[in-house]
């Protein structure tokens, strides 16, 4: 167990380094300097107090998205619908935040988060229902649900809930629903503690409760779990609902803590980023916290890189894609390691 954990960590780090290396080659091909680019990226991510705030602020939704992915994955369900669940949750929070201005802050925030969690959970629940009742593969369903969520919420933002003015956004939420910033005028807000708390709760449930044990056994081998008297279908519902709820709450934190309203396409691709985060984090809560900060840094650094070197910030998706590919094919990293150690052996011999 311990050694397999260590090898997972090795593969994650190795994959990240390999991805950075390949990306450096791409930067060279585009006739920029990789050292300059990565330097600007590092500075943008860790260079000042505000860049740290940008890194951790960007990491916050990534933690939620990564956890969402991991929760479903533990039950053997592949929920690629994070994107849609985030959008639905964010919209629900934006609507709930507009009303109930007189409520005490804590209660209003909790109501908004609950609304987002339920919205995201139910949205993911559609895929669970189709998987259990109709045996339809959840992957395509969740992807279709992503597009549906984005267009449907766009409709809501542009029609019934549109604020006055040119931009397609909702009205500001009331002051009582705002999650305060930790550092003013940055993305970093107290929502990050909620994200960490969710990670720890997930860790506790997974390791210390019967529910967590049963969830994992369904994920490892559903038919064996059925034989042992565990209702696999029940856990698919639970895992998908919780997964969607966590994603939805992640969307809510973006609304309540960062933007203070819902604006079209505000959560671009966080759901897909979450896949990279959970893959690199080896689906473990602690691993996800770490890899979310790494990707948060990369994303925050990318906009600085874009300013300094004109390398498009979409470059980060390339890097993320490479990380997914390398982590998912541990054989590549292992082979590389073997080759290196063999080379060493030769030199020594």
């Amino acid at each position, binding site marked *: 167990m311990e050694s397999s954990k260590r090898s997972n960590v090795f593969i994650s780090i190795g994959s990240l380094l390999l991805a950075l290396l390949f990306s450096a080659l791409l930067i060279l091909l585009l006739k920029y300097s990789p050292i300059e680019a990565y330097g600007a990226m590092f500075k943008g991510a860790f260079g000042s107090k505000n860049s740290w705030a940008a890194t951790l602020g960007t990491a916050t939704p990534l933690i939620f998205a990564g956890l969402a992915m991991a929760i479903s994955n533990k039950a053997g369900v592949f929920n690629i619908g994070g994107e849609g669940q985030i959008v639905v949750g964010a919209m629900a929070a934006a609507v709930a935040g507009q009303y109930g201005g007189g409520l005490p802050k804590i209660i209003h925030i909790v109501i908004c988060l609950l609304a987002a969690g339920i919205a995201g959970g139910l949205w993911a629940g559609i895929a669970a229902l189709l998987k259990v009742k109709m045996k339809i593969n959840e992957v395509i369903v969740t992807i279709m649900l992503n597009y549906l969520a984005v267009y449907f919420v766009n409709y809501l933002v542009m029609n019934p809930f549109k604020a006055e003015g040119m931009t397609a956004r909702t009205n500001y939420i009331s002051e009582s629903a705002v999650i305060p910033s930790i550092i003013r005028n940055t993305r970093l807000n107290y929502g990050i503690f909620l994200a960490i708390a969710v990670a720890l709760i997930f860790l506790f449930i997974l390791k210390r409760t019967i529910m967590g044990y049963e969830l994992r056994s369904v994920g490892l081998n559903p038919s064996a779990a059925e034989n042992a008297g565990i209702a696999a279908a029940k856990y698919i519902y639970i895992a998908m609902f919780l997964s969607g709820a966590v994603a939805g709450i992640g969307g809510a934190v973006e609304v309540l803590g960062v933007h203070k309203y819902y604006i079209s396409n505000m959560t671009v691709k966080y759901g897909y980023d979450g896949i990279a985060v959970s893959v690199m984090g080896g689906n473990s809560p602690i691993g996800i916290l770490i890899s979310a900060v790494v990707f948060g840094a990369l994303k925050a650094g990318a906009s600085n890189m874009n300013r300094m070197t004109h390398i498009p910030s979409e470059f980060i*998706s390339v890097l993320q894609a490479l990380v997914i590919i390398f982590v998912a094919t541990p054989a590549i990293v292992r082979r590389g390691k073997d080759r290196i150690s063999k080379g060493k052996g030769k030199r020594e011999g």
Partner: protein
Amino acid sequence: MDTLLNIIACSVRVATAIGFAALGGMLSERVRIINMGLEGMMLFGSFFGVVGSYFSGSAWIGLGLALVAGALVGLLHAVLTIEFKCEHILSSLGINMLASGLTLVLLEVIWKSKGSSSSVKGLGTIRLPIISQIPVIKEVIGTVSPLLILLIICVVFIYYILFRSVYGVRIRVIGDNPEVAGSLGINVYKIQYITLVCSGMLASLGGAYLSIGDINMFIKDMVSGRGYIALAMVVLGRWHPIGAVAVGLIYGMAEGMQYRLQSVTIAPQLVQCLPYLATLIVLLFARSGRGGPKAAGKHYYMKGQ
């Protein structure tokens, strides 16, 4: 009447893109490899089609470049899933994210734009000799994209390969049971590799149709889920070349109606939901598994591994 013809003409156009991708998805599932990377392969196809046409001034060279890109990405998926036993879905998602990111980066490098390329030479249309004389039908398929003709050729060719050639027998045996195929002396990996490269090329043709076959430019993330939709069509088409394309045509109707409805009073965002809703409904009717290659997505280990 005009509207109806319009919808049909439009659905033929939509079906061309989806049809190529569905053929690609069908082939790869028949050798037991799930290819959700169709989405990214299409995107590479549409992008490199435009790139080739932009730099050479000829859309046909663009089409060639798209094919090369598709073949390479198909090969990548093959190497990852066959050689390195990568989870098929993760490899696919990686490819799709790579496509989305790389096309945007290159878009900005080449055209200094975040949204779309400049207009390039397209493949144009061909006026069919006899059909363009027949009254009603000529409105629909009197003048067509050369890629539609290529699609029909591909369907016939793939049908022939699958059901009338030794090579097809091998593919079908692998689809039924790769272990048996291996014990019969079939080189499973070789056939999987070849099939996946073809799958990538087909998907890239579908993508190229969207750009140089239709609007003659590249737009950010222009494939917008059609690769995944094509996979759903494969299930409903029962892993049959004609079935997959025919279903694509029906699906095209849904999208064709979408364009018509956008000019009516319904909010455009709601209308945009239609293709995805239609796909979900398709999946409901198709149900999974039945009649399909059973263990698609499972790794096969050749002897001596």
